[in-house]
């Protein structure tokens, strides 16, 4: 019964997301809107974590299996793929490598800069009022 109640909430938010997506003027997937609604509901305690946790984590932890039918749909697109397969491989290889590298380097640089600043602030002597002098 517990699992049924939890799935009920997940399905309700799924449908609410689809309804919003249908009404929205820009193309946003209903599933993502459902996720945002669910996050807001959890954040503002409209629903409690225990009311969705088990079924939800079971789904997210086993997500990969859900994509088999969609992936098998490739067999209906062999025509397109056979003409561009090596270009697709290059696009995926180049874009994935650069994306991981760029995000890794950027995030590390910003974190280090923030730490450096924090260290500088704590080393700055206090002014006579007891406030830190920061320019």
């Amino acid at each position: 019964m517990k699992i049924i109640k939890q799935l009920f909430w997940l399905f309700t938010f799924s449908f609410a997301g689809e309804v919003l997506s249908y009404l929205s003027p820009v193309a946003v997937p209903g599933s993502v809107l459902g996720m945002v609604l669910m996050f807001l509901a959890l954040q503002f305690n409209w629903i409690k974590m225990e009311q969705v946790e088990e079924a939800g984590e079971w789904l997210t932890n086993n997500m990969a299996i859900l994509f088999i039918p969609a992936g098998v749909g490739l067999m209906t697109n062999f025509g397109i793929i056979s003409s561009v397969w090596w270009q697709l491989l290059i696009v995926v290889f180049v874009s994935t490598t650069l994306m991981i590298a760029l995000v890794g380097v950027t995030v590390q640089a910003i974190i280090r800069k923030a730490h450096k600043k924090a260290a500088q602030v704590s080393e700055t002597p206090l002014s006579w009022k007891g406030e830190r002098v920061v320019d």
Partner: protein
Amino acid sequence: MIEELASNPFFGIILSVSLYLIGQRLHKRWPIPLFTPLVFAIIMTIVILLTLNIPYASYFNGGQYINMWITPATVALAIKLKKNIEHLKKNVTAILSGIGIGVIFHTVIIVMLSLLFQFNEELAATLFPKSVTTAIALGVSESLGGIASLTVAVVVFTGVLGAVIGPTLFNWLNVTDPVAQGVAMGSGSHAMGTTKAIEMGDVQGAMSGLSIVLTGIAVVILAPFGLMLIQLFF
């Protein structure tokens, strides 16, 4: 007779799940990318359907019952986001700007390469959401007019590739910060990158899981601009 039985919903469900489970066993013994359960199940299902001459529509009679769980699973990603929100608050500027810059840069790369290879609008739309988790990528690809099944294939390939090359890239570029590693894995190669990130450490795993969701949201927000770029150039 085969076609009639294959149209029974249980056929598609049993075929998919059994191949996935076989893939899991193979991957445990021989952890090579080809045996990643999802990759193995997709390839073998296609091989079996083609060999037995079963149309995709018959298989999808069962497949649709697996497919329909994608939406509630995506909704459930909110639980992961909620659980990791503290990690986000601690490094909010670094994480959000890293993902934002990454997603914009990724879009530019896709558009440039698509122009170089003279892809059509449909293919560019298929590739645009490739670094995000399959559930979100599927939705974005469909709403932009891409080819859904090809998006799934490209997303899966991105994930497998990212999980393999991520650690090597971090070595080369001297990216040692665990937060930076996790965010890069999650935003560049979604759930499969996260599996690798979890092996690298707890912080990496949590950051990677969080970044899947944030990158997905960033791509959704950027999608209208992506569509504009695609319509402008193609």
